[in-house]
């Protein structure tokens, strides 16, 4: 919303409840990078600040807001984006079991035959291990739909997603995540983070302390090949394997700056391990 308003030369003040942008999902370093980037685009970003009151004029239009820091900000438009919750009030007194969302099993069946629920409003009674009961992103919505479509075509199919993945774009920085990367990694996990000095490119790998098996990736400003991430996460590859084959993982456009060397150097710094990333095979004229 902020990006759209800025594209029309409309000044934006952005109130963010957390101390750093989206730091309930993004680890601290990534959150800091995005916070900086938002400011670079001349958004008046107010951290640890929430909306307290909206004031209107005599025409019923908004004329200012009051924030939790006590400041009054004049404005003509207030956009509120504080997350989604299932809108299931219309299911009251229908006999369909609801909790926070419409309750479904792994086939997306509700307790009423021939009635299904998928997407943002569906709540898995027995969530897939590692996944939330209510999944509210585009990708899971799409997978729910594709799974249910098979059932409706006659092949009763259970929801069986592979490794988690998500993506976003904050102004000019693309964000990708594969596997499980939380704001704070688990007690049995370690993580390796690398950031380019320009503050616009970052790479994080989370892995099990003991075995070195990878748990998840985050990238900012760098693209990873989904098929490969998916395969490595499913196969339980190790961090060493990842570092060795970084070049294969890269999905950036041709001629893009390569960061494998820098990332390997960063890994050496952290772990003392020298892993030389394999260079991508150069095709000869006759292959």
């Amino acid at each position: 919303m902020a990006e759209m308003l800025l594209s029309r030369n409309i000044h934006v003040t952005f109130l963010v409840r957390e101390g750093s942008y989206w730091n309930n999902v993004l680890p601290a370093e990534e959150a800091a990078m995005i916070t900086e980037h938002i400011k670079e685009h001349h958004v008046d970003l107010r951290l640890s600040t929430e909306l307290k009151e909206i004031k209107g004029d005599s025409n019923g239009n908004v004329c200012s807001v009051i924030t939790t820091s006590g400041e009054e900000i004049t404005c003509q438009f207030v956009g509120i984006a504080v997350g989604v919750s299932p809108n299931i009030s219309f299911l009251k007194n229908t006999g369909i079991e609801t909790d926070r969302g419409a309750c479904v099993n792994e086939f997306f069946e509700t307790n009423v035959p021939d009635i299904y629920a998928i997407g943002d409003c569906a709540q898995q009674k027995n969530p897939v291990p590692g996944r939330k009961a209510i999944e509210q992103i585009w990708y899971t919505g799409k997978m729910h739909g594709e799974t249910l479509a098979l059932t409706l075509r006659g092949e009763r199919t259970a929801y069986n997603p592979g490794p988690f993945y998500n993506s976003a774009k904050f102004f000019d920085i693309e964000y990708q995540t594969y596997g499980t990367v939380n704001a704070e990694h688990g007690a049995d996990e370690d993580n390796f983070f690398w950031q380019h000095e320009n503050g616009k490119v970052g790479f994080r790998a989370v892995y099990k302390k003991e075995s070195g098996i990878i748990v998840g990736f985050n990238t900012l400003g760098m693209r990873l090949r989904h098929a490969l991430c998916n395969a490595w996460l499913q196969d339980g590859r190790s961090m060493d394997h990842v570092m060795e084959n970084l070049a294969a993982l890269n999905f950036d456009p041709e001629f893009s700056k390569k960061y494998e060397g820098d990332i390997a150097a960063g890994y050496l710094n952290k772990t003392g391990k020298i892993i030389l990333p394999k260079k991508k095979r150069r095709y000869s004229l006759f292959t």
Partner: protein
Amino acid sequence: MTQIAVTEPSLSITEESKEQTLPQKVGGVCVAIGILALISAMSGAGKTYPALFFFLIIGFFSIGAVSYALPYFQGQAGIRNNGIMFKNMTSKGTIAWITAIALTGFYIIIYWYAWVFDGVIRIFDPLSRLLTNKPADQWFMYGAFYTLAVLLMGIRFIGKYRHSRYHVIRTVSVMFFQTGFAFLIPMILKKLNEPEYYFSYFWPLKYNYLFPSDVSSLVSSGKLGVFMVFWGAMMTFIATPLLTYKYGKRWYCSWVCGCGGLAETAGDPYRHLSDKSLKAWKIERWMVHSILVFITVTTLLLWINSYYKGGVLGSLSGFFAQWYGFFIGAVFSGVIGVGFYPIMGSRVWCRFGCPMAAVLGLFQRFKSKFRITTNGGQCISCGNCSTYCEMGIDVRWYAQRGQNIVRSSCVGCGICASVCPRGVLKLENGKEEGRFNDKPITIGKSNITVHL
């Protein structure tokens, strides 16, 4: 009654921002002066003061264009197409139509009524004498304006896409080939009394280079002429299949060809206007391959006729060649090809008419290592890729099912990959095996297979 202050910008998101920045105002004024100078030159002043009007016209157009392009170099680097659907010029508004009619008119005049432009042609005499030792003609003027357009709009393009090294390098390539191979070299060859030859164009695009008449006149002009014939044949029969095998059509259509060069630079503001319908795709396939058959048959007939020196075949082949030259070579590739930019997008010729595109497309589709990989399940179906595809390919259809894009019309401009908000698309050359992956499994569902 409270009134909203007049100075506040409109919150209507469908209105373009009316405010012009200073560089844009300066740019507009310069272009206006350039147009005034152009009209004066046309009316006769160009004959009397060629050098003065040369600098006035070229100078003000250049400063104007660069000034207008300046905002693209400012601010954060990244893809932005703000206002493109609302601005008059890029959304088939009045200004776009005026531009289209003016461009079409320019082509019609230059092909069949060149005397109308005599005043402007004269301003190029000094440059023409420098490069060719001869006075300028309408084709020199055309080449000069064409090259200038690619260079100036190329600067704008580089500003807009400066975050992408691929685009910057590709644009420099296109600027280089247009300026060097499609303007300077042929002109200097003229000066050296050698054939005026365009090394970056060959059969079937520059069809006459393999016509018996051209081949014999090139061969008889000397050693360089013989080399030129070999060069043309080598490019058509060896380089084209090889390079297209390795890199796809893009090696030519987006990196070398002048038509492509203009389309990517001057045509960049219009790429979203291409027809996306299924009907257009069907028409395009019929047209472009028919034209390829037509020019192939014509070429063969001409050679057969030159061998047998017959009468019937002679007039038939001559008629084919003339007809092709007028309708395809002139009207289609020139008048419609460029004139229609602001209304139908930048690749009308490339998509519906170019026989070279047909040949390259056949190789790309059936024997090549090039594809646009779609990154697993990452597509969010926003449709930007299909919107900005200048060839009217429904890129999104492939992306959302995780299927690689292998299409004969894809010129590999790379814009779809740039406008994608999730980095789902990657132009790459890979193994031939599995290039189509046409039974795609969107990553993330371990137990689903797509039955086709």
